[in-house]
């Protein structure tokens, strides 16, 4: 029942061609240490799922790790502009975008969390997205005869979620915005948590009403302080402006790999560190 492991071991259990749901949103609380290790271990053909991604998706497109992205929005925020590597990969045909409406990613994950093959969606009524994508279909409601749009379920093999704190069992608390992370923990076949801190279960029990992911849903726990860096982690650190701008200035694959290498010590350092009481 020992769930605590290193990021190297956890990532080694991710298969090529796996579907990964990545926690966080745009520049916030993305599981970057895990993402960088996916690149280091040269995983390939991954399918990434997220309502709105940025640096995580962009980095994995830069390293050739990704085949498909299911998302509603992929871009850095105003200050940093568009994701160059993602765009290039899609425009060159190396990466396929399954464009969603953010909500349809949520709906597809809800379908997975209840183990049904599709979810009806009210809002998706007009436009080319329905016609051009085979994961949307319009059917007749058997109760009323009215048309209703269905979105096909997306079942992630692994949900990767970075949190501020959890205990040795994996009982995890997300402080601040939770985005789609709680849903992802219910939709995926396996749940891997990277965490800023591991605290004792006795201490965590004092905040038990705030637990977002109960431990029995969690397969792996990896202790990685700064595990969301250079995206933000509420109450721990803000977006690292310099690191992001640095990344966005890089063009060559070799430069990107060096950028990832610079994090290696930090990402690998503290797998076995003691629990906080």
């Amino acid at each position, binding site marked *: 029942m020992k769930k605590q492991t290193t990021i190297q071991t956890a990532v080694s259990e991710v298969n090529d061609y796996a579907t990964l749901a990545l926690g966080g*949103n*745009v*520049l*916030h609380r993305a599981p970057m240490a895990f993402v960088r290790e996916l690149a280091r271990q040269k995983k390939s053909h991954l399918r990434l799922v997220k*309502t*709105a991604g940025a640096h995580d998706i962009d980095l994995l497109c830069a390293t050739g790790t990704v085949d498909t992205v299911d*998302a*509603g*929005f*992929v*871009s850095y*925020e*105003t*200050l940093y502009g*568009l*994701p160059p590597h*993602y*765009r290039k990969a*899609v*425009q060159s*045909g190396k990466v396929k*975008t399954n*464009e*969603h*409406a*953010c*909500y*349809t990613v*949520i709906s597809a994950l809800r379908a997975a969390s209840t183990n049904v093959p599709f979810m009806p*969606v*009210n*809002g*998706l*009524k*007009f*436009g*080319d*997205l329905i016609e*051009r994508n085979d994961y949307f279909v319009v059917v007749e409601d058997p109760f009323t005869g009215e048309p209703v749009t269905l979105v096909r379920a997306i079942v992630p093999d692994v949900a990767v979620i970075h949190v501020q704190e959890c205990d040795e069992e994996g009982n995890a608390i997300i*402080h*601040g*915005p*939770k*985005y*789609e992370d709680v*849903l992802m923990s219910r939709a995926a076949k396996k749940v891997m948590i990277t965490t800023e801190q591991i605290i004792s279960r006795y201490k965590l029990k004092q905040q038990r009403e705030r637990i977002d992911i109960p431990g029995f849903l969690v397969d792996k726990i990896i202790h990685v302080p700064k595990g969301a860096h250079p995206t*933000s982690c*509420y*109450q721990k650190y*803000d*977006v690292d402006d310099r690191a992001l701008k640095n990344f966005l200035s890089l063009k060559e694959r070799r430069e990107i790999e060096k950028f990832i290498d610079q994090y290696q010590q930090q990402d690998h350092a503290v797998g076995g560190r003691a629990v906080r009481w």
Partner: protein
Amino acid sequence: MVNDYRISDLMTCVIADMLRDGETVFHGVSSQMPMVAMHLAKQLHAPNLVHLNIPGGVNPSSIKKASYSSAGADLVEEGEAYFGLDEIFDLSMRGKLDVAFLGGIQFDRHGNINASVIGDYDKPKVRLPGGAGSAVLIPTAKKAVIWRTKHDPRTFVEQVDFVTTRGNLWKIVTPLCVFVFRNGQLELDTIHPHTTIEEVQEQTGFPLIYHEIRYTKAPTKEQLQTLKRIDPYDYRSAEF
């Protein structure tokens, strides 16, 4: 008078004036201008407006710390309750979201919105960020408002390359004018005081539709003073 305010101030005030008291209003990521406009409205004429956002902070009491982002934790920290993005979408599906602020890259005279691709969908010349929530919010929010800090013939086109969505589009606010979507077409609502109808036409890729030329109301002194107080770091100009 023109020097009293900037285009970003004007646009922010125009947006604020569209909001009514008690409405539930949502903005997404990279949406500093509508975020500030919502707070301006709350301060001046819509104290019971309900401010919803991606991180999930309901009615954040301040946006001063919202910084570069409009999807960060600060909005939750200052909020009075938590109501996440999934719930906001559900709310809109139920017809209970009054106003949604959304983006887009290309717009045409028929009210179609493109946030997906330039060129072919499967082999795009340019892959755009995607419509985020637009494709479900524009058809379900009671009033969808688009703001855009660029107004040129590549933005406002005869026919979009790809229809990411269409639906309950109400207004589009640009640095030059306000469009209103009426009778299935994008009509000119008002032009801003600092421009001319000729300039707006020149920057628009389809023939403007209007009965008379009306000018956008300039920001009031009270609005400008309030803006300075609630948005001291000028996030409303982030996209300029």
